[in-house]
């Protein structure tokens, strides 16, 4: 009895030792040379793996940083402290940090925009857009299926009850993924200080816009006339604002007949009463 236990133990022990030797040599033979800084840099980065920098995840950017092929500011998610730390570690200049947030440039809620047809299919704005430009009357307006909300790696967006996405600008890092996935280019990145948002991207003439949405820009140019900063102009049937010149006085917002202009104060959407 005891001798069999001893034999068993001895055999297992010998096997264990043999495997350990094998593993030791394998670890040496298959060792991958890696810059140790890469792991440190990966930990310094926000770790969201959103891919906005263009590299594959934070470790991808870390490798490029360590090899001198990228700049710290390419990470739009990292805040200024993180960027300063990375820049100091690498021994480079941090560079200016320009924070951006995503804004929804459409005011076509389910109440105000015409729905031409119902839609049954994949719950994805891109997929819906591929079928005869979608079920909505306005082929430039938000489809409300929430692809941007799903794709946001930071959960900074929710789909509002009126059918439009809502961005929480305090959480939004400006990574730009929602901008890429929106098939209609409704999401745009702007500085969070930008006071005015034109909630429409439709280049159609006023009459066509009116036929499909009560909240779209009809290019009446009233805003252009009342602006004393020369900050807003109607170009190609769409009002466009120069955020640097705009002082947020709100004169255009008051006068706009379709209420497609909006003063934003960061967190809360200032909505006209429906």
């Amino acid at each position, binding site marked *: 009895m005891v001798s069999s236990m001893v034999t068993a133990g001895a055999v297992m022990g010998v096997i264990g030792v043999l495997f350990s030797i094998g593993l030791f040599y394998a670890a040496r033979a298959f060792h991958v040379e890696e810059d140790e800084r890469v792991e440190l840099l990966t930990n310094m980065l926000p770790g969201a793996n959103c891919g906005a920098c263009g590299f594959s995840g934070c470790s991808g950017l870390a490798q490029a940083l360590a090899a001198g092929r990228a700049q710290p500011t390419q990470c739009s998610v990292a805040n200024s402290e993180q960027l300063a730390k990375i820049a100091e570690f690498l021994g480079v200049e941090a560079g200016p940090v320009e924070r951006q947030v995503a804004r929804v440039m459409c005011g076509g809620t389910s109440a105000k925009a015409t729905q031409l047809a119902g839609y049954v299919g994949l719950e*994805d704005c891109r997929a819906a857009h591929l*079928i005869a430009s979608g079920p909505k009357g306005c082929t430039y307006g938000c489809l409300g299926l929430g692809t941007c909300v799903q794709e946001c790696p930071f959960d900074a967006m929710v789909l509002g009850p009126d059918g439009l996405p809502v961005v929480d600008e305090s959480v939004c890092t400006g990574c730009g993924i929602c901008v890429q996935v929106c098939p209609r280019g409704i999401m745009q990145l702007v500085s969070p200080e930008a006071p005015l948002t034109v909630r429409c991207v439709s280049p159609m003439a006023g009459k066509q816009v009116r036929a499909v949405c009560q909240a779209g820009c009809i290019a009446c140019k009233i805003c252009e006339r009342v602006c004393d900063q020369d900050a807003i102009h109607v170009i190609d049937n769409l009002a466009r604002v120069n955020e640097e010149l705009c002082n947020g006085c709100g004169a255009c917002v008051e006068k706009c007949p379709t209420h497609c202009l909006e003063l934003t104060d960061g967190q809360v959407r200032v909505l006209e009463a429906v």
Partner: protein
Amino acid sequence: MRRRRMPGGVRTGEPPGPLGPILSLADPKRLILACAQPGHQLNPLVKKRERVVGGQRLAEPNGEGFPIYAPCAGTVTDVAPALSSTGDFVLAIFLENDGSGETAPALPGWDDPTDPTPEAIRLRALEAGIPDVARGGIALARSLAPTTPIQTVVLNGCTTEPLVQAERVLLHHEWETVLFGFRAAIRAIGAPEAIVALSVADRPLVGTLSQSLTERDAITIEILPDRYPQGLERYLLAALRGVDLPVGEDPATVGFAVFDVTTMHALGRALRDGQPFTHRVVTVAGDGVARPGNYRVPLGMPLGALMEAAGRQGTIRQLVWGGPLSGTAVASEEIGVCANTRAVLAYQQPVSFEVPTTDCIRCGRCIDVCPERLSPIYLARYAEHKRWDEAEAEGALLCSSCGACSYVCPTGRPLVQSIQLARYEILRQREAERASQPKEVAVP
């Protein structure tokens, strides 16, 4: 020259028996004529409140297009953007029919398709405003002046999609006109060989068609299996001559010119009768119309009016532009019939209500029917989980969007839509990578 059998495919079963006649319609009250062609817009020649006659030129190309003509006499009520079948708004001429039936005089015609010179044929094709429907609506005159050498001209009469009979019915009832156009096309291109491709369902027609052919024609008639999507050019050419045409490529790159029956018929009418292209045969079907059939429809007829003329019944909840497998549902009845409308289907109940989507049961039917030998089960799964790289590796870009997989899927999964989403994303990401700033910024 080995024929290559198309793998997969579905047999959807055309009802047997002779095709009905081509039905004519009273010209509708309103027409919406789009002034848009692939890549460019036309210049309208008419203004609001102007009166026009049937066959009068309404818009002119600026560049590589072709003119459009009024299908009937009437007054122009507006020149404004209108909804097209792709969902875009394009400039259109709104015409109100005055019922007078007045037409412009026809151009002089030829009795024999070999009388006009190739240049004259191309000029007439341009003047008569004939699009090459098989090439997506570009000017036929362009297809008749190929820039690469063409060995074989093919008349694609092989419609294997169910319900769509518009092409076949022209072969049955107006073959002489089609043949006139086809002979002229062969002459204009100068190809040594020509084929008329038919599906097995039209085998009884071979005798009648052959009678019109003479030794002068180098035209052979070939029969292809009646399995959708045999009629798609890629599989057509593989089956006829064993040619490998990559997905999305023009047949001219492999020395073929493929024409559809409607285009050849229009060319025949233009050359022989001097008539511009103003009407086309459209198959109207579905349980939303009481009188389905093949109608000769004026271009620009609104879908709503077409449904009324075909006997709208019940509430039409789904309106399909094109065939049931390759077409697309439209969101409005206010779209005018245009050159590439082979069929309009009206359903009282969308098929997705009858076959609701449930989880995949891994039956493998989609793999059995895919003519590209892809695995839609995996492709759609990758697409739905947004794994675009794996979808691309699996062959998402090779899909020809024929719809056979979704057709057979017992659980009603939107396979084609998922694969198209994957293609959209893959191409968009490629485009974004190409256009973006260089990622790698050298540190100073």
